[in-house]
């Protein structure tokens, strides 16, 4: 068990960094968009501290579109990382898929595709529900 964890660190780190960057960029652009809004200026004009303005009002609003993207990424994350798994020789779905495809083992190929697609769909669904939860403008519909 411990051995598995040890062998997990490198591929996990690599994969995390790759996934992190687009999210960071998204948060940045969403924040830029939100911070231009009137209610941010209004919060400042009411004397609220800069940190309150940025985190409580800015980030909270900026996160709404982020959640959609993160949800989709999550779905994709589960799609397995064939390349990462192959490189690190990690016995995962991705690597299995690569081997099966090389051998044109169709049942396995089909199975993997169906499973991954299903997971992505579920991730989409969860994202939509979460979105409705955090944005009060989209409730009761």
């Amino acid at each position, binding site marked *: 068990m411990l051995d598995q964890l040890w062998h997990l660190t490198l591929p996990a780190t690599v994969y995390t960094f790759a996934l992190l960057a687009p999210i960071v960029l998204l948060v940045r652009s969403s924040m830029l968009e939100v911070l*231009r*809004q*009137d*209610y941010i*200026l*209004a*919060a*400042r*004009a*009411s*004397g*609220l*501290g*800069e940190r*309150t303005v940025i985190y409580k*009002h800015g980030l*909270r*609003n900026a996160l*709404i579109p982020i959640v959609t993207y993160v949800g989709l990424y999550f779905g994709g994350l589960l799609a397995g990382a064939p390349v990462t798994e192959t490189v690190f020789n990690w016995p995962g779905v991705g690597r299995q898929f690569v081997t099966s495809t090389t051998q044109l083992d169709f049942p396995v190929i089909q199975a993997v595709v169906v499973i991954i697609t299903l997971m992505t769909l579920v991730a989409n669904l969860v994202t939509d529900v979460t979105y409705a939860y*955090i*944005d*009060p*403008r989209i409730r009761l519909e």
Partner: protein
Amino acid sequence: MPDSVLRVENLRTYFFTYAGIVKAVDGISLDVNKGETLGVVGESGSGKTVTAQSILRIVPSPGRIVDGTIEFEGKNLLKLSEQQMQRIRGKEIAYVFQDPTTTLDPVYKVGDQLSEVIMRHHNISKKDALAKATDLLRNVEIPDPEIRINQYPHELSGGTKQRIAIARALSCDPTLILADEPTTALDVTIQAQILDLLKELKNRLNLSMVLITHDMGIVADVCDRVTVLYAGQVCETGTVEQVFEEPKHPYTEALLTSVPSLALRKEKLSVIPGNVPNLIQPPSGCRFHPRCAYAQQICIDKVPEFEPIGDGRWVHCHRWKELDLKSPVAS
């Protein structure tokens, strides 16, 4: 001598953009006395909003205040630290924004947003703050305030949201209110209601207010004194009676005549010829000269001085003495 609440002197706020430096406010001076409502009137682009934002020092980047003094109750606001400014914003000077649909945070309940401001400036519990917020909503004549407190901004009408914005401004009993075109984004019937509310609050609470608008009618209705702005500079200042009955600046005369009136039947709508000037490269001398019916060579060459005419009247024009300007509303 009425005591002055706010005195702005020679304010200059520029925007440093990639297209050049936009001199949005270029030498504006104005003052507000206790209990009085000063109207700041001008076209879009005249610098009205930027002036108000400069007073509170919330001018968004790339804007920056580059010159001038802003004296509030004896202190120069431009010399204060950010922390000290935060204690003034919302508590001593409050701001009401133009567009009620964007001035409230859409993800928080109305009551929470009001109580947040109250708790920032006073040391009371959330429960008490919410109670005070409910009272405030009642004061601005919102029916069923207990229900409204728990609602989100998108569930409310424009008029109600603007009342809430006004309530937020009043929440900490400020000395001065800056109202930036509070009725422009509302339809006409609601406009009238909000104006009545403002008048009533002004009388009841003896508020000092700066009311920014482009509508001369509102100025006549609500304000005591008025400052006319054009292209980032002041044209003239005086009491509403003085300015409306005896305008001393050609722009003021043009503004007054361009208001369509049912009472004075004319064949053509009178307009002010020309366009709002480019603030990166404003016209030389008096900025109004390209559109002024009375412009002469001196107006192109020299920037006019800001001259006091006595009685609290000020004019920014080379030819004010010789011009005999007519006002359509003179009695």
